[in-house]
């Protein structure tokens, strides 16, 4: 009974650490430089940001679970095509769903970027790397936290770029007199990501110093 409780508490602690690391402290985008491409290319409106976050979660969660359960039974060189083609099949379903059920305009604006989610470095590094060497529950926690960490960054960047470039947020006009249409270009996202990464680095350093004092 005692051993069972110890194991449970160890697993819960590991889940907590994994979640905190992947979501914030070692944020997948701002610290690990993974999954930057869709933010630069398609993160120009908040709606795009939310859709790409959902697509990333839809790919990453099953891929991580699959690789955690079966990854170590497969030779290392066989894993990438398996999870990538699987992810592409999931994205095919997502594309049809968005096109037919949600909005054709939204699908048209993300036509290139929805399938690219399948080859996002987020999938290859987390599902193909981390998950293979971890238990399913930890791999699942990492996949959820990585998706949320990616979502947080893409939604902040997309929202700010939408406000600056179009003067709207979630397509609602904000009635700004100045609109900077160049904010939709990739350089603006690079600069925003740079400042956000610096802010996170400063924040973790301040929190680390406070914890060390206590």
């Amino acid at each position, binding site marked *: 009974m005692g051993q069972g409780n110890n194991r449970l508490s160890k697993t819960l602690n590991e889940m907590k650490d994994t979640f905190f690391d992947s979501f914030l402290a070692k944020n997948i985008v*701002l*610290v690990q*430089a*993974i*999954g*930057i*491409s*869709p*933010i*630069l*290319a398609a993160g120009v409106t908040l709606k795009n940001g939310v859709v790409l976050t959902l697509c990333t979660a839809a790919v990453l969660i099953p891929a991580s679970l699959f690789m955690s359960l079966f990854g170590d039974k497969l030779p*290392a*060189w066989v*894993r*990438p*095509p398996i999870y*990538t*083609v699987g992810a*592409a*099949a999931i*994205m*095919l379903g997502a*594309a*049809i769903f968005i*096109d037919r059920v949600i909005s054709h305009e939204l699908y048209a604006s993300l*036509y*290139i970027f*929805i*399938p*690219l989610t*399948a*080859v*996002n*470095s987020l999938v*290859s590094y987390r599902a*193909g790397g981390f998950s293979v060497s971890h238990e399913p529950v930890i791999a699942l926690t990492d996949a959820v936290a990585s998706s949320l960490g990616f979502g947080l960054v893409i939604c902040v960047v997309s929202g700010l770029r939408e406000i600056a470039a179009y003067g709207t947020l979630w397509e609602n006009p904000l009635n700004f007199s100045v609109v900077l249409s*160049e904010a939709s*270009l*990739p*350089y*603006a*996202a*690079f*600069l925003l*990501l*740079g*400042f956000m*990464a*610096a*802010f996170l*680095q*400063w924040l973790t*350093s301040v929190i680390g110093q406070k914890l060390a004092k206590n």
Partner: protein
Amino acid sequence: MLRFFDYFLAAALLQNVVLMTGFGSSVLIKSSKKRTNILPFTTLLCIFTTLTVIICYPLDNLIGTGVLAKWLRPLMIIAITALLYIVAVLILYNKFPSLFNRIKRLVPVAAFNNLVIGIAIIINHQFAVNLPGAIGLALGTCAGFLMLSWLTTEGIERLDNPDVPKAFRGLPSVLLYLGILSLALMGFSGSVSILQ
């Protein structure tokens, strides 16, 4: 043939794909951390990008432009890249085992990334370009990636400097550096991109 050089020069010099579209930016930052990785990684990237474009080009014409074709096209491109990856691994493993051992970690990253698939999708989706033009764009993209990798490595080495504020050391300064490069390139070539 003129199309080949037009697209090659545009993608290699004027409109660097990573800086103008963001495709391949994560793999660029990762591969640029180690100077010795740049050439083998870009060579592999070039092989996968060019072969994917060459194989997808006639298939794209075959599957047509219907709604179903539009949905299935990305899956077709990814499946072709997966086949190319398997063939590449088998050739390297059987014919060049020592080379394979040295570069085996780079092969999947070079095959499955936004740049390889993104270029193939863009060419098929957006371009009324002939095959030499498509090959020129693929090769030019890789030449641009190579140049940007060297620039990024130089940047990473120079930015590892005590004069840089602590919060900006490492990734933040690299992202700002790439942002400024992207802005400079946009100022040089204009914001109307052949790739957007």
